[in-house]
């Protein structure tokens, strides 16, 4: 069977640094997968290879049966890969509604002709309505409808995280990659986030969680990929990962 995301022998070199080294991994439809590893393990680089932000040095990445090597991020996004950013990147001078609508208009494009004359045609109004509906649905999913008119810059840190997720959800992605969503959250907030991610997964969304910290990932993921020094060192369910000697060595530096 074909995997939803299929990474084969992916490598990425930055000058003399081999950030990702011959990684082969996959994600199937409906999975909730964790990607962990110590600092500098190559998580973010692998993530960027999967979302088109960084071109591969060698190897292939395929999404839903299509090779995405050499595609621009916006092309990958329109294939159905949604992502969030490690260090919160909302559009600060736009309202919450407008922020989220960008995810919708990115995948349901409205061009200048649509903006000018769309209001006079059936197709044009339907497109605008669809964008609006997707935006409200994504806001509803993260519980931010009551703040729709608020400026994103005025939101507290925790809500901005959910705003970023809502923006990605408005793309109606087939595959959602969350980059360190728990960073900067306290324990209570992290637990709430874990429940939220589980709920999204329960609704049938395929999710990859890139995390620096093991706790959240171990708690909710079905399968975990472990990177260290650019290589994949383990791939399996949380119980196995927890006892895996290579993982323990990478994290704790224990000779085993």
């Amino acid at each position, binding site marked *: 069977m074909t995997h939803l995301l299929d990474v084969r022998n992916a490598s990425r070199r930055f000058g003399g640094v081999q950030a990702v080294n011959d990684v082969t991994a996959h994600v199937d439809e409906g999975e909730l997968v964790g990607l962990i590893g110590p600092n500098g393990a190559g998580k973010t680089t692998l993530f960027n290879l999967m979302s088109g932000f960084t071109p591969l040095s060698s190897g292939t990445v395929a999404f839903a049966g299509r090779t995405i090597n050499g595609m621009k991020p916006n092309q990958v996004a329109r294939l159905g890969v949604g992502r969030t950013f490690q260090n919160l990147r909302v559009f*600060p001078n736009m309202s919450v509604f407008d922020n989220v609508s960008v995810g919708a208009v990115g995948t349901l494009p409205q061009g200048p002709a649509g903006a000018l004359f769309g209001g006079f045609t059936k197709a044009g109004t339907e497109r605008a309505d669809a964008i609006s509906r997707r935006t409200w649905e994504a806001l509803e999913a993260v519980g931010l409808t009551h703040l729709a008119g608020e400026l994103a810059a005025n939101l507290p840190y925790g809500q901005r995280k959910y705003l970023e997720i809502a923006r990605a959800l408005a793309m109606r992605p087939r595959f959602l990659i969350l980059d360190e969503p728990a960073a900067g959250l306290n324990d209570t907030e992290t637990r709430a986030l874990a429940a939220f991610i589980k709920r999204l997964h329960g609704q049938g969304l395929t999710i990859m969680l890139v995390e620096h910290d093991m706790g959240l990932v171990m708690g909710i993921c079905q399968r975990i990929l472990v990177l260290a020094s650019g290589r994949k060192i383990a791939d399996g369910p949380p119980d196995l990962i927890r006892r895996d000697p290579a993982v323990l060595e990478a994290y704790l530096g224990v000779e085993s």
Partner: protein
Amino acid sequence: MNAFEGTLSKESGGRRWLVPALLALLVFGALPALLAGFDRGYFYQIANLALIFVLLSASMHLVTGVAGLLHLGHAAFYGVGAYTAALLTSKLGLGFTVTLPLSGVVAALLAFLVALPTMRLVSIYFAVATLAIGQMLYLVMLNWVDFTKGPNGIIVTKGFELFGVALSGRLASYYTVAVVVVLCVVAIGRLSHSYYGNALRSIREDDQCADAMGVRTVRLKMEVFTLSAFFAGVAGALWAHMTGYISPGDFKFSESILILAMVVVGGLGSLPGAIIGALLLILLPEGLRALGDFRNVMVGLVMFLSILLLPKGLLGEVSALRLVRRQLGGAWRSTGKGEGIGWR
């Protein structure tokens, strides 16, 4: 998705049309009545000039305020439009009905061609590239004497007309300029107050992030740069047929900066702001004529203080969007709050 159908009911009531109706009454009723009452050519001249700069400022709002591309050569595309109109009139004998759209198209085509290599440049490098483009076009107007008559300028023999029917007389000229400018500003309003406009704003805010949301950033930047040049070209045709004489000096770098100042003083990203900025920076120097040479110092002071005290502009983007959403239509009712928030 059914749960949301209820929120998609159109904002009801006639209040939505109140502000546009009042503005239309002002531009097409009260103002021309006043102009006709005074019946002085100078006042007509000022009113037309102010309207043309409203269009220039609005078109720059689209590219700089909404999409966040610092454009330092806007006046050159205004000039391309004016020269297109002037040359089509003097060399081919064409009238305003034809030169108006063609001026926009030629300016847009030229903008498209220069945008091809420059659109991948970021921030300051893009600004410098547009500065260079502006200077290049200005120098062509100045030095290609055989074609543009260089510093002597061109006399535009034909005034406004519509399909051969002359629109002569001061009032007819005013109405011609007003109709064209209002139509263009409405178009710019639809472009900036739409989901398309939101995509443009996202490029201004964080283009990498917009890219990750599926927004085709390079293509959108090209589009908005080309569109803004189209409107600048249209403004150029209005200017050429209105004054009857154009020369390169009308389109030099300082004009680009003046238009930029209008957008910034009014409020970056705010269309009403761009209009207010244009009116202020055209009408203020005229109103201060009594001060003699001192007036430009006063204009500078007003600009300086407005930026110092109101860095977001006279009518900043946030309040402008709220105003547009409440008063100018295209709004959805949000869940329960009764505040329109989407676009249609």
